[in-house]
């Protein structure tokens, strides 16, 4: 309910687009890249394709880096990115950026883990493998199984910059290639600690506060929880009609409802 109210508040400035705006359009749209966007966009795509059978939209993962690379090469129509592309990427691919949501990145543990808060120093020590056992955090002795994302992941880059303050990530950390795989790994490992998009967090994993601030939508919205990033759709050059309509739909009131349903904050700029 809170999420819905927040979404409605956020969407005051959003346009009044709907799936009806796709009327008269046809063709296909290929989207790939960031994995945090997928669940939310799948619902939007389902809504569009259910009403407009002559429109085909596909979505794939691969990570933000792959998405940026593919859209720049013209392999796909739109890329999903969980980070703002670098200046050289924008220049090289003539990228146009369309932010439609804000997402937080949370530290996640297995629900059996009793930890509820970690300080920045503790996080830095855990992720650099200076702390390797939960005993050092005042808990029962058990190894800390560290999970991180691959080097091209936007989730990892934003987490490293904003939560770890650019401190080292240990080479012994297990590297997972998508948000969904990260959730599965954390869910199955009682000693796990990892990073996950807030939009992916549910009862199967447990989010912990950083310096006493819980990674909730409200805290991301009021900027008290700072480990957050924009979710972007990128096109190479100005987007064509179908791609533009899709972007507008995600940034509309109807799109904002979907965005907020999946744990993100809807924005239109």
């Amino acid at each position, binding site marked *: 309910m809170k999420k819905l109210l927040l979404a409605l508040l956020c969407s005051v400035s959003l346009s009044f687009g709907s799936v009806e705006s796709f009327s008269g359009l046809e063709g296909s749209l290929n989207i790939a890249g960031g994995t945090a966007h997928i669940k939310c966009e799948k619902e939007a795509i389902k809504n569009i394709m259910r009403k407009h059978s002559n429109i085909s939209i596909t979505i794939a993962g*691969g*990570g*933000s*880096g*792959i998405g940026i*690379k593919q859209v720049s090469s013209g392999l796909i129509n739109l890329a999903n990115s969980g980070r703002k592309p*670098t200046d*050289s*990427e924008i220049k090289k691919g003539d990228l146009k950026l369309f932010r439609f949501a804000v997402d937080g990145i949370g530290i996640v543990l297995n629900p059996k883990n009793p930890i509820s808060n970690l300080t920045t120093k503790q996080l830095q020590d855990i992720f650099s493998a200076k702390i390797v056992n939960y005993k050092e955090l005042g808990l029962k002795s*058990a*190894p800390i*199984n560290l999970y991180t994302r*691959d*080097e*091209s992941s936007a989730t990892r880059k934003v987490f490293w910059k904003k939560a770890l303050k650019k401190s080292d990530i*240990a*080479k*012994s*950390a*297990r*590297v*997972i*290639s998508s948000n969904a*795989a990260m959730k*599965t*790994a954390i869910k*199955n*490992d*009682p*000693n*796990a600690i990892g990073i996950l998009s807030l939009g992916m967090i549910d009862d199967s994993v447990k989010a912990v506060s950083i310096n006493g601030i819980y990674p909730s939508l409200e805290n991301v919205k009021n900027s008290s929880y700072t480990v957050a990033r924009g979710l972007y759709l990128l096109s190479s050059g100005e987007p064509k009609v179908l791609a533009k309509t899709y972007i507008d739909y995600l940034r509309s009131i109807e799109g904002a409802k979907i965005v907020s349903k999946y744990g993100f904050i809807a924005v239109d700029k």
Partner: protein
Amino acid sequence: MINKIFSKSLLLFTSFSSGLVFSIFFLLGYICLDLFTLLDISNFLSFDWDVQKDHYGILTMLFTTIVISFLALILTFIFSFCICSTIFLSKSKILILFLEKTVLLMSAIPTIIYAFAALFTIVPFISSYKPSSTLSILVASIVLSLLLIPTMSLIFLNIFRTLAKKYQRVCMNLGLSAEDFFFKFVIKNAYKNIIQGVILALSRAIGDTMIVLMLAGNALSFPISVFDSGRTLTSHIALIFANDYDSMAFKAIFLCAFLLLSSNFLLIMIIKSIKVK
């Protein structure tokens, strides 16, 4: 006339495919040579991969690839030999049919299904005994061995049956039991084919990506135990591929690809050099 056209077409397609593979091989080699002008070769032939420090050593990945492949190969050999011996020696038609169909079914299962199933079975099982080990070299090797069983078993079965068809009746008439015939004649005469089967399975193990990517943990540290996580060359390529085209990390994966392709060429050359009777 039709046969001639058909055989010429086959030759054309074979030459084209071979030419394509060799072109890829030489292209990779050329890119690698170019790579060595940008950074010293010792940088790449080290055990340290750290992009922030401009270290692009791929030997840790090479070592992990070798460990996982050989561990999987040992397990596969044991499983395959047991399965094939049972099929060859058993008198139960139901058991033979069951084992044969199981091996055939295994060959049709996509690698991702093996990896996905292992995430919910083998991974929690091993971590319940050793909590620090979840995604590890051991898990990846076990699951990879399941993938290799059909490749090795079908080659073994094929040669066992060929030899049996030719010599079983003669040997039986000479008074050999089925077990004697299998262990003293078939194995003795099939060892070169067995080696070929093992090498073919090894080349498949080295080239697999999905299982190691999902199950080995992909840690960049040098593994000192089979319970540790590790990253193979194929996983490394898959994970680094998303980097910027201009980055040195992206360029360095061409060396990984060159090593992979070279190792496969080498294994195929070994298979070809083994003279089978």
